[in-house]
Each structure stands twice: as C-alpha cells, then as structure tokens.
C-alpha cells in the first residue's frame, strides 16, 4: 500500500463568512489556559493572539488557517526541528522555536504568524538578547511562531461538541468546517461515479 491517510484541516467558505472574528476570539480563548484566560473577557490580561486570521478584501471576508500540509514546508524550513507531525497534525513546539521566521516565509497560505511569547499573563523575556529602551538596556521579549493545531490539547468539558476545533464550533454562520480529506475524496469520487 502506498496511499496515505491525509491530515484533517479546517477550511472556511468565503460566501458564508460575515467577518465577525468570533473564530479568532475562540481560538485565542482555548489556547490560553496558561495565561489565566477562562470564560470571561475580564480574565484576559494578554493581547489576543489567534492562530487563524480573518482577512478582508473588497468583496469578501475569510478566515485563513493552517492546511496541515502533508509535506509541511514550514517544517522543512525550520532549522531547529520545532515543527513536527503529531497524530496527523502539524504542531509547533513553542518552547523550541527560535523565531527565525523561516516557517512563516515558507507557508503558502500565510497561516503562521510571529508574536511575543506569554506565560502566566506576562511576556516571556529573552535569556540574553537585550535592546535599548529609554536609554537603558532591557531584555527583549521572546518571539515565537503560532499556528493552528486543530485545538489538539483543548479541554472539551464545557459544552464543546466532540473534537471539533473551537473556531468551527463558535462560527455563527457555519462558515468553517473540519475537513477529513480521505472521506471527502471518496465521497466526491462516489458522487462523480453516480453521475456517469
């Protein structure tokens, strides 16, 4: 057997998206337990860092996120092997990330962004690197790459519907869906055969 089990990924329909950014907010909410973020907006003490981004053009809005590429150009570009495939998901190990931007440049979808790293609601400082701020040398903030991990570490206790990523679950117009390419392909193959 030489065929593969392709990874699932989240994709959105531009025709449905209303640009509300609920997906961005939900994504942030479920990835920030370690920053004290719970249910209420009032528990947020760090900037909202989403792992998918709603883009706007003249004619449509659309969230863009990782396609979990089978050949993961981001992983190929990573010089420190911080990006790995785990249980069918391409995952960035943030503690290993050196912020080199190689993955962000390699990604054909712009699904990877660099932001400051936060822990316990505070910016994680560099160990050595410093920069001048108001005539004093201070340690710079550590910067790392963030991208969609299909909510793989999410706690699904509270009202969550199975293992659907948070963005899919909260979208008020069902513009987002979790696609399983293997079943989708076989379904379209069958549908095409029926039409013949």
């Amino acid at each position, binding site marked *: 057997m030489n065929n593969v089990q392709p990874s699932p990924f989240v994709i959105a329909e531009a025709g449905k998206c209303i640009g*509300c*950014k609920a997906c*961005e*907010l*939900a994504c942030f909410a479920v990835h920030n337990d370690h920053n004290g973020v719970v249910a*209420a*907006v*009032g528990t947020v003490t760090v900037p909202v860092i989403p792992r998918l981004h709603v883009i706007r053009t003249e004619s449509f809005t659309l969230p863009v996120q990782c396609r979990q590429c089978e050949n993961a150009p981001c992983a190929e570009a990573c010089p420190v092997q911080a990006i790995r495939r785990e249980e069918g998901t391409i995952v960035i190990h943030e503690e290993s990330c050196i912020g080199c931007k190689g993955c962000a440049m390699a990604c054909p979808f712009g699904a990877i962004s660099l932001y400051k790293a936060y822990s316990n609601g505070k910016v994680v400082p560099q160990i050595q690197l410093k920069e001048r701020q108001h005539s004093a040398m201070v340690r710079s903030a550590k910067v790392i790459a963030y991208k969609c991990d299909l909510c793989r570490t999410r706690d699904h206790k509270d*009202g969550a519907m199975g293992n659907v990523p948070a963005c899919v679950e909260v979208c008020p117009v069902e513009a987002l869906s979790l696609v399983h390419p293997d079943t989708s392909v076989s379904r379209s193959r069958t549908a095409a055969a029926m039409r013949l």
Partner: protein
Amino acid sequence: MSYKDPIIHIDEQLCTGCRRCAAVCPVDAIIGEPGHPQTIDAHRCVVCGQCVQICTAYAADNESTTALRAVKLQERGQLPNVREPLFAAYSSGDIQKVKAVLADPKRFKVVQCAPAIRVSLAEEFGLPFGTLTPGKMAAALRRLKFDRIYDTNFAADVTIMEEGSELIGRVMSGERLPMFTSCCPAWVKHAETVAPELLEHLSSCKSPMQMAGALFKTYGAELDGIAPSDIFSVAVMPCTCKKFECSREEMSVNGCREVDVVITTRELASLIKDQGIDFIHLPDEPFDSPLGKYSGAGSIFGVTGGVMEAAIRTGYELITHEQIPNLQLDFVRGEEGIRTAEVQIGELELKVAVVAGLKYVDAVLAKVAEGTCPYHFIEVMACPEGCVSGGGQPKLLLETQRKIAYQARKSAVYRHDSHQKVRKSHENPDIIKLYKDFLGEPLGHTSHHLLHTKFVDRSLKEEMS
C-alpha cells in the same frame, strides 16, 4: 449626572459589519449594511447592552495601536490599565468618576449591588460560572473605601411591599389591569417609546435601585446623621440601561440625585483589579444594616420570574392571612419567552404572565391595547434570562458557553434564596422596622413621595401618526 450620552456605542473603526448585534437587538435599533460599520438609533435603543455582550469584533493589539488603545479606553470611560481586548460594541463607563470620589475622604460613599452581581462577579476573576460571592463582594467594596455597603436586594423587598399592595388594590378595584412590573428600565423605556397610551398599566413603583437611592438619602442619612447632599450614591448593576435610568430627571429626592453613578459588574471588577485587591482570597464579610439586610425574595429579582415569585409569596399571605403552602414556585421559573400561570389565592384566581426578552412583549402590548389581555399581573424583563444575562454582566469569550453560564448564574440566584433564613419580603425584620419607623404603610404618603414615579411619553410624532 446627565446622560446626553446614548450609553451604547458601536466603534466604527472596529465594527466589521457582521450584524450579529442587529440579530440580537430586541427593538431593531441597529442600522447598517452588511460589511460596513453599524450605527445605533438612540431613540429606539433600550440600552439593554445585548449587542455589547455578543460583539466579537475586537481591536487587534500590536505596537502600532498601543497609543490608540489608551485613547479609546479614555473615550470609553474605562480605567487606563484595563487589559482586556476592546470590542466594537461597548457601553460608556463611569468608573473613573467613582474612583475619584472614593479617594475623597470628605464624601460619604454609599454603594448598593443588584441581586445578579453576587452570582457573576467571580467570573471576572476566573472562578467557575455560578460561584456565589456576596461576602467577598461586600469585603471588596469595604476595601474600596465605601462607607456603607448596602444592597439593592433590601429595596427589592421594599418593591414587593409597594408593588404587591398596588397589585392587590388594582385587582380589588378592577382598574388599570393588567399591571406590568416597572423594575426593568429597558422595558420601561421601550413602553414609553412604542406604547405611551398604555403607561397607566405599569406599576407606579420606581425600580429597586432608585428606591434604594431614595432611602439612602432620607432614612439612611437620618440614621447616620449625614446631610443627604454629602452622600455619594453608587449602584453596581448587571445592566447598562440602569445608567440611563439613574439620569432620568424625575429620579431625585428633595433635590438630590437618588443614584449618582451606576457602574456595571464588569466595571466593578476592573476597579477591584485596579486597586490590587486579591478578590479570590477575601474573607466573607456582612453587608451593613439596616439597608443591606434582605430576604430570599429580594435576592431572586435577578432572574426572569423572580419578581413574580417574590410578589406571589407576599401577596398570597397578605390576601389570605395564611402561610403560602410552597415557597418554590416552579410555574414561574423557566426560560421560555412567555410563561403564564393561574394562581389560586383564597377566592381569587390570579392570572399571571412572565415575559423574558423584550422581543416577546409587543404581542402582549397589542392584546392590552385591544382589551383582550387576560392577565392581572405581567412581569417583563428585557434581557433573555432576566438580569443574570444583562448587558453589564461579564462578557463571554465563547458564545457556546452562554447557555451554561446563564443556567449557572440562575441556579446560584435560587441557591442564595434557598439558604436565606427569611424568604418573604414582608417577614424581613428590617423591612418591618422601615415601615414602622419611617414609611408608615405601603402606598402611604412617604412611600408615594419617595418610591413611586410617573412615566414619560417618548414616542416620536411620526411614530404616533
């Protein structure tokens, strides 16, 4: 304080035009094209703040917007060190003013908290939905340097005495029925806007918040030997429309504003954080007496059906002079938009209705206008589950948690009631004392002067024609 300010705003720089706010608005006050920033029709808007709760369009935070964030926080009346994201839909804040007065030792600062604050405030500090913290809330307010920690729940008990007596009088005389509750300012503003000809059907009672304010600057001032003009009266409310209500011209007593400033649950949380108070580890402390002692009936005003249940507990006993057989009135509890019931009270079969969510009320108003509405008493709350779901309550990051959050807040309200020793307003010893020492009797001269009000026709000419 005067509110020329419409209180509810949509920031056109942040609004993406998704129109989820328009879908949740019960009075169609949000105007605009999809994909473009929305505006609010201030005339129609009932200031309920449901749009503030649902909005997810937030300002992305990066270096280039840091200065802009400070400007926006100032414009919105929030404290400068607020960390949470800024959303397109927001309500005007009043916390800066409260903070300034709290630092002034010459002012006598009195605070009241609505029933629904103690079941939701903890969420702002990361505690689970439905965590009940009346004691920590009182302790936090004391550390914020309020001189008296009073309670809207006490005034909710007063409301039952007044409104219950008013209902009995109207039912006996058959006049101006059905009688609507008048606790919810968003409902009152809506009635004034769309049905001014039916305003005589509203109870003449002020809301518990305004009753409390009036009592603080009369009865409370006397007890403390303080000049009413020296009292600064703050109300913590789950509701954005309470800011509108406190600014109504008629809401004054002997020349003083009854409530000087209203802040929301979220604003109180931001002040507690600003002052570095460790809310989670505060001890439980009591409210001050007598204007902070309440019954279980007073505490259930925070949920849909609560005013009705509290009124029936007292009304039953005032009419029959017998103990009500069951204190938990499940027939008015629930979440449907309209619930109706018939309650046998002695000879009287009282027909009641509970309306939760303002979008359900217009059909009821139409029936009243045509004279076919069969009920004696109708409770109306503008928000979907009553005050626990108010526009000033903690805002949720995930829409999918809304139902669980509201259920847990409601359960906490009922739990709080069931744990009170006194569960009927007319049995609250401090209410009995208030009437004995100060008010005389419900609907008496002093009550009429302090606790009752008139409503205003707010219809536009074109809407009337």
